[in-house]
């Protein structure tokens, strides 16, 4: 009798201890998740609150003076658009075609495994290595100099894996019966891809392109040694130029002007977040529609 109560007693205290442990564990997890959210809001809030008031029409429309300490960032905006748009325009057809090969033409086997492996490797290469390569290959070897073109081609290679991967994912969602239907009507393979498969997944392709664009706009290290950093408006693809991300780095590292630094950071963050949320929105719409 006595023995049994004792046993019962230990069991009870054990279960209480277990409960406390469990509560502490999940409490910690709530705390960690809360801190993560807080950090996100801190970063966004800090940059936006300090920067947005300085994003004025003059800031957007005037050219920078005194290395960016005065004036606006108009030429930097033009440079950003030139470099990133060019990168996306070059990378999109190559990336989409690559994904089409992976999903529609390849019959498995060693070649495709090798290509896939290299695409993964390309995706993992740090941006500073792209910068070194862009400098050695495009700027020096191909003799492009510090230019919009050299920067855009460097970024093209960087965003290629993103476009390939997203396009491939959406190609996979096109039902086999669509292809079979088209082929049985006498369409050739390429005609089927062009008229049936690709039109079904433009949303996925667009998502990939937009994600690539977001990555290109935020990129700095790959452009440090490839676009030169001139504050003049680029007049040709061989002009030296500067993107907003690079401009932000220059301002922050030299401590040129607090006000302009915050404004540039805020503008950059707003653009990148708009781009990324529209990408996820399109992606979601597409999957919901299916």
């Amino acid at each position, binding site marked *: 009798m006595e023995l049994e109560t004792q046993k019962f007693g230990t069991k009870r205290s054990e279960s209480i201890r277990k409960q406390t442990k469990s509560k502490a564990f999940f409490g910690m997890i709530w705390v960690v998740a809360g801190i993560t959210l807080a950090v996100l809001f801190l970063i966004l809030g800090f940059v936006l609150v300090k920067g947005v008031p300085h994003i004025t029409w003059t800031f957007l429309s005037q050219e920078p003076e005194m290395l960016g300490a005065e004036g606006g960032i108009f030429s930097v905006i033009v440079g950003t658009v030139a470099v990133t748009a060019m990168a996306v325009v070059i990378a999109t057809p190559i990336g989409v075609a690559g994904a089409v090969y992976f999903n529609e033409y390849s019959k498995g086997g060693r070649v495709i495994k090798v290509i896939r492996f290299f695409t993964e*490797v390309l995706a993992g290469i740090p941006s500073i290595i792209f910068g070194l390569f862009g400098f050695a290959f495009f700027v020096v070897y191909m003799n492009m100099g510090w230019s919009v073109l050299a920067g855009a081609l460097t970024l093209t290679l960087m965003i290629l894996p993103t476009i390939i991967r997203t396009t491939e994912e959406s190609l996979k969602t096109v039902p086999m019966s669509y292809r079979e239907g088209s082929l049985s009507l006498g369409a050739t393979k390429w005609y089927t891809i062009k008229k049936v498969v690709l039109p079904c997944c433009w949303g996925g392709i667009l998502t990939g392109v937009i994600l690539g664009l977001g990555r290109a706009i935020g990129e700095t290290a790959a452009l440090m040694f490839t676009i030169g950093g001139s504050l003049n408006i680029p007049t040709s693809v061989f002009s030296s130029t500067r993107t907003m991300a690079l401009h932000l780095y220059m301002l922050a590292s030299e401590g040129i002007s607090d006000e302009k630094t915050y404004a540039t950071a805020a503008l950059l963050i707003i653009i990148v977040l708009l781009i990324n949320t529209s990408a996820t929105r399109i992606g979601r719409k597409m999957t919901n529609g299916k």
Partner: protein
Amino acid sequence: MNTREKAIEKLIFICAAVSVAAVALITIFIFAQGMPAIQRVGLFRFVFGTTWSPTNGSYGILPLIAGSMAVTLGALVIGIPTGLGCAVFLSEVVTKRQAGFFRSAIELLAGIPSVVYGFFGLAIIVPLVRGLAGAVAPDAGATGLSVLSGAIILAIMILPTIVSISVNSIESVPNAYREASYALGADRRETVTKVILPAARSGIFSSIILGMGRAIGETMAVLLITGNVAVVPHSIFAPTATMTGTIAMEMSYAAPDHQQALFAIGIVLFVIIVILNGFAQVVMRRFGGAAA
């Protein structure tokens, strides 16, 4: 198949092979530019030399490797528990809807450009660390540009990588595992720590390796907040220089010999990253799904 179809297939194949050409060219050019420096200095003296002072012709990158390792390890020490906590939170604690909100937040974090992280670190983290260092050792005169600042920012930056891959592998743990665990009388905490996390270990492990690769390769943030002093850091409040930061910092004014040495750092970095990423892929493939 007519000739036009064949030509199109060829063209598409060439597009697919661009990645191969790109990786090959990157490898060739980085090695071609960097190897002369390694040959001149000697591989051993280059990698294990303790003085990085290019203006005096001294090219030892051990301090830079130590700097990269220090901030990366620091980032992992902070980032792994936080990342796993968030992953468990997403998959085991909250409802689907709340998880969706939290997931978008993590995605936002992943989208912030690294130069913005650097700027944020410079404006917020560095002064905080300076204060902390001042409280610990008032006479040291720490600037806050330090290993710790770098580690904190890198931890935030690798969080999305760790969380998203870990969540996927936790969610692919079969529900039968949870049910069996509860049936044996385990509570929620025991189920998570003793059944689910071990079952998802391959995905978690590769998420950590990928996060580590991202931390080592990250440039802009560490460039702005670690101080760029090429000495082996002796404390977490000491400034340091990473491999990436040194390349970014010195390329603009490097003389030809020096520039080759910077490309040689690129080689070392490239090799480390390819090994880490290859390793992560092997781990994922070997252990397959969650039920490893």
